[in-house]
């Protein structure tokens, strides 16, 4: 066993995903199978090999340091808010 339920619980906490007991059991099994399958990568000799950081790593261009962000009206953005008050998104209280 590469991972047990305790580790699955820890990963779920890191990923901020609430899982049921049933899900913890299932994912522990799945993850073990998948990670076992990945073990074969250890056969590959990667000494002196640089990790890939980007597929376009040789083709990056210089550009002017200006933003090309698009402008979206505040109202339009707020339309998608699951909960809001006036022009603000609301969340549960974080400061006591």
């Amino acid at each position, binding site marked *: 066993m590469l*991972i047990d339920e305790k580790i699955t619980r820890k990963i779920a906490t890191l990923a901020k995903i609430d*899982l049921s007991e049933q*899900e913890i059991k299932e994912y522990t099994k799945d993850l073990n199978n*998948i990670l076992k399958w990945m073990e074969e990568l250890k*056969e590959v000799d990667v000494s002196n090999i640089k990790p*890939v*950081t980007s597929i*376009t790593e040789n083709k990056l261009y210089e550009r002017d340091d200006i933003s090309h962000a698009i402008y979206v009206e505040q109202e339009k*953005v707020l339309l*998608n808010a699951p909960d809001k008050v006036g022009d603000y998104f609301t969340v549960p209280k974080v400061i006591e």
Partner: protein
Amino acid sequence: MTNIMNADIKNIIKAIANKEYSVEELVNDFIKKIDKLDKFNLVSEKLYDEAILQAKKADAKKKEDRLPLEGIPIAVKDIFCTEGNKTSASSNILKNFKAPYESTVTQSLKNAGAIIICKTNMDEFAMGSASDTCNLGNVINPWTKDFSKPLTPGGSSGGSAGIMAASGACFSLGTDTGGSIRQPASFCGVVGIKPTYGRCSRFGIIAFASSLDQAGPFTKNVEDGALALTHMVSYDKKDSTTSMEKMPDLFKNLKNGVRGLKIGIPKQYDIEGIPSEIKDLWNKGKKILEKLGAEIIDISLPHTKYALPTYYIIAPAEASANLARYDGVKYGYRSKNKFEDLNEMYCKTRGEGFGKEVKRRLLIGTYVLSSGYYDAYYLHAQKVRRRIIEDFDNAFNKIDLILTPTAPSDAFMIGEKTEDPISMYLNDIFTVPSSLAGLPALSLPGAMSDNGRPLGLQLIGNTFCEDLLLRGAYAIEQEICFKNEPPLGNL
């Protein structure tokens, strides 16, 4: 023209220009067609009102003001943000999300005159190979004969591939991360093209794995594919990974044949257990190319077998970062259950909002990036990825194109592989290596399986050589003359 919906795009454009058909008539014909396809669950949202409005505008235009794709109805995978429309990537966490802006690719197509007629269903966040993780239910392949045993259209772009098989649009859009255009194209008997990484802007496409995601078209034939792709690619200041490399003219040499081209046949793709009908199709492809004057060369891509596990480390790792944004604060679903604090709100929202496969991949991704495991999994996988890229670099020193099957099977029954994630992942065995290397590749229909389902051939090209890729595909297509159509009866 008796059945304009089955015509090539260039002939549809001609028919509209000659006023044999109005754009409004064309759009209405497609609307009627799409409505008849409801039972296949291909469509996430119908955009008919807007499409008819655009059609009327197109019809009112003077001849000289007409755009190159004026009035051409298209279907768009629900992963592309289209302003003002629901865009949910088939996930409950984005169920009611209305995109406040437009993706660069769909904007380019709109600027060229295309009309979006509907959005299509897919695997949730493009994570899947059977379009069976969609929040609106399973997508069904129009090649299904017996509805008690529905076939998958493949995935993740299953809705877009299926709608082309059923002639429900002039072309459709998909995205391909590890095979999500090519495998469904194979299963549905249509052409599906994944261009070189960096050709199409990813701006406004809901991100899955940013170093792999690429947009591409589904079409009825290769020439339509060349036309669609021409209007999709661009350098985009809003996506720094797009390329400034000029797209070659895809039509210039399209019909020049393959005489003198060197075609690589990678021995590692001849895997144990692949059905003989797929090997036969592969041989048929080789023979056609040989007959047309191409030189067939055996090549070796020694790290092929490591591509899948490498992909299933890198893609989930990138996904776990990309999908961190779904927190129930600014948009999308927020848990309706009671929560004590912000952290609990995040956890419940994500636990309830994401589907089973997405959660599985987020857990894998989080694990391989977590402290203590990063070097052993993620960093190692990125090194193996370089080995895979080097394999292709070496091969392309000697050859022009690579020929392989697209998928290791024909369309399977929905639910057949759902319980075993690894057997589902193996669907992408022939498509993932070129994805990891960012290479352009396509699938074109090659034959029918013994079960009466389409099988695709895959061509892989060198970086930025889409012209050669399409030229090879066109030559094969003319010889194969794939004329089979799904059993839609009177639809």
